């Protein structure tokens, strides 16, 4: 198999896409937003429960999409729980650098290691938006918007 493809579709990505974590609606969500990619019609809805101290107590997602977008959403939900809103946004900033093939210096060692599985997408410019869709929706939810879109 092509080396780029092997890096893009790593086993862990395929696993997340087949068995997405935190999949489904969150009944007591405080922040909700939908991400939509008009190019492919993929949709992802992000639910967050943020407490009075701006800490993310719970997070989930639902929607349909390609392996990359579902895996990215699933991985994101795993990593957000327990972080403050500011930390979540910082993580997103690092993630956006990573998937564009740039040096994500803002990420700490642990986070970088966990997100590294998504770095393969940087070799597929047409697919970067698939990877960032859920993250933009998360940001939109935290900003109090209801919709985010990648175009």
């Amino acid at each position, binding site marked *: 198999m*092509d080396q*780029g493809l092997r890096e893009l*579709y790593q086993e862990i990505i395929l696993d997340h896409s087949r068995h997405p974590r935190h999949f489904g609606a969150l009944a007591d969500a405080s922040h909700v937003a939908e991400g939509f990619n008009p190019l*492919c019609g*993929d949709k992802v809805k992000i639910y967050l429960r943020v407490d009075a101290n701006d800490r993310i107590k719970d997070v989930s997602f639902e929607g349909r999409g390609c392996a*990359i977008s579902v895996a990215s959403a699933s991985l994101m939900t795993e990593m957000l729980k327990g972080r403050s809103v500011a930390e979540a946004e910082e993580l997103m900033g690092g993630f956006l650098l990573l998937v564009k093939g740039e040096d994500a210096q803002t990420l700490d060692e642990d986070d970088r290691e966990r997100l590294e599985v998504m770095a393969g997408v940087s070799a597929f410019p047409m697919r970067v938006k698939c990877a960032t869709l859920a993250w933009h929706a998360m940001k939109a939810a935290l900003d109090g918007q209801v919709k985010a879109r990648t175009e």
Partner: protein
Amino acid sequence: MNVESRIQSSPYDAAALRRDFPILAREVHGKKLVYLDNAASAQKPNYVLDAMNTFATSEYANVHRGVHYLSGAATERYEEARVRVQKFLNAGHSDEIIFTRGGTEAMNLVSYAYLAPLIQPGDEIVLTVMEHHSNIVPWHFLRERQGAVLKWVEVSDLGELDPADVAKAIGPKTKLVAISHMSNVLGTKTALGEVVRLAHAKGVPVLADGCQGAVHGVVDVQALDVDFYALTGHKLYGPTGIGVLYAKRKHLKGMRPFLGGGEMIREVTKENVTYADAPMRFEAGTPAIIEAVGLAAALDYIDGVGRERIEAHEQSLARMAAKRLKELNGVRIIGEARDKGPIISFEAIGIHAHDLATILDREGVAVRGGHHCAQPLMERFNVSGTARASFALYNTPAEVDALIAAVQEARKVFG
């Protein structure tokens, strides 16, 4: 290339034709390019590019304006292109051929110039669920702005359209039937002549989206008796930026202008304006002159190869591809109409269309993955998207092999 020689070259020689298309010799990702995204846009033969270049370097000027030599020459070439399109569609008159920017503009022109002035709230437009967005959104405009009602005609599980269902959807308030001649997703060829006959029996005109239909078979707008026929140049091996609306003379007379500007007027004063007759009335501003010449060359090229021969070649490739795709595990073809063009939509169960298209791309195989600008149809078949392989006059059986091998590769990646 000598167009005449293509007519005589027998049997059909795809390998020779490929040499007319320089881009087909290139590689992508280190693999031989297998271009199967022809329904999105076809590649251009040297014959077309050379015709445009020759025109631009020897006879180019603006049209219908100057009295100088080049303006006259350019106007002649431009008007010859119109006549060439007229012949291609077997239209009765060259003034029924309006040059547009593409198929989308052609259908919007019908919406704005023909239909909008006729629409009262509650009036109906009949269309099918397999329309491309360009044959949906212009009618949504009339729904939003003037209270028109869209009446949707369903297709069967095979993707076939029953003309009787179209007839049933037509009521006393129906002002237009807007229907694809060939679905860009399912490949379904609609029984356009029959739809027109049934619609006319109820006094309703028909617009056909011929963006695919005009590419894969002979179109005779007089035999079809269709009122409007839209096509685009770039899918016909011609340049981008040029398309055509065929409109019957009897409709052209009442149509209001769309864009205002130069070339579409008879007289402009401070107080008033009068308009030129069709087709000029609908071609405001400097048109795509070089592209019109390119389109005419593309039609020469196509007819040089032979439309029936192209159709037969494409059909044999598409049938081969469909058969072999169905033999693969977990592959479903969406759209199995008995009468269909060389467009195959399919899904590999468990693999999203974009993942599939990405993997195929790495094998050099260019297919479209996604909703194909036909979201109502995706809803009808309950898929978020499909992969689509579409064949052109230059594709080969070896490229079908490459497609099948690439889909098998995708199966391996996804286990």
